[in-house]
């Protein structure tokens, strides 16, 4: 029997997924990324603002992002963009998350509570 991948932590990969998705639309710097995450998720997902940078550095180190420094109105900004490898990684992460959320929703809908949880999450 082939080994199955496990989901060690439900929130694992969420910041990476969101960041890659946002940067797919265009380059952004850290502050813009955090604001965009807050806006697009209706503040459901709120990340500690400063902790977005280790994720960005790690993604760049992995070749999923590239950065460039730009001085805008006397301020030093580091803009990030997605690379081809980053786009591939986004595809993989998105597929994993779609499968995972689908499975959770299916479980909640069929939990024997008359579809109560299924309605709540759909």
């Amino acid at each position, binding site marked *: 029997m082939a080994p199955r991948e496990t989901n060690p932590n439900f929130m694992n990969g969420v910041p990476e997924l969101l960041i890659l998705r946002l940067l797919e639309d265009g380059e952004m710097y*850290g502050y813009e990324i955090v604001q965009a995450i807050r806006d697009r998720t209706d503040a459901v997902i709120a990340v500690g603002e400063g*902790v977005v940078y280790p994720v960005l*550095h790690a993604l760049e180190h992995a070749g999923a992002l590239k950065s460039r420094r730009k001085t805008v109105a006397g301020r030093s900004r580091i803009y990030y963009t997605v690379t081809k490898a980053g786009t591939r990684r986004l595809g993989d992460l998105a597929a994993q998350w779609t499968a995972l959320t689908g499975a959770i929703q299916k479980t909640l809908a069929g939990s024997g509570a008359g579809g109560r949880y299924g309605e709540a999450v759909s």
Partner: protein
Amino acid sequence: MAKRFRELRERLLNAGVAPRHVRRYLTELHEHLADLTAEEMRAGRSSAEAEPIALERLGRMEDLARTMIARRELRSWTARAPWAVLGAGPVLAVVCGWGLALLILWTGWTWFLQGTPNPFGARLHGFSILYFGVGRMLYYGAPLAAGWGMVLLAGRQRVRTLWPVMAGGALVALMGATGAVDARPPTVPGRAGDVGIRFYPLPAQMGDAVAHALVLLALVVLPWLVWRWMALRGELERE
């Protein structure tokens, strides 16, 4: 504010995060904090009210440090493999420096001193003085430059353990003290001979070699010891 970031920088470097990531992280946090403060002020808060809110939104220093330190891939090679960077690194640097010095010696011998049995002691003129001078500088300067480079890397990464720095310093000192340029006369008349480095001092030169090694070791390690002493004094004063 600056003190807060200074402490974060020291903590990250001590934990082995690569200096370039630390530098960029602090720049980004600093700019992010300025953006948050400006945002709070646009919302009608005074500067005194906006700054603590902005700091809270940025995250606790503990979390900012922990999330960066948790990324093992952002650690520097000096932290991951100190024996390689601080031990083998300087040796490689000396080998490269001496390789270049030998290349200069051999090409200089071929171009400027054709037919002479030995490149040492020959009368030099014009450009050849400069050319051989660069080679000589590389030969004498390589151990010291490699040692100081190693100390700089150790200092940048806040390496506190003594043995990698002492081992790296001892290796370059030993190489610098025992390595001597060897030139063999040409086997074909009119051509340049062979050049190389001989590493074993003659018994008669042993005393000089030991003294030379100790001087080199002191010159290499002294800046690091001074830095460690100053850092330790700073820590004690803060406590």
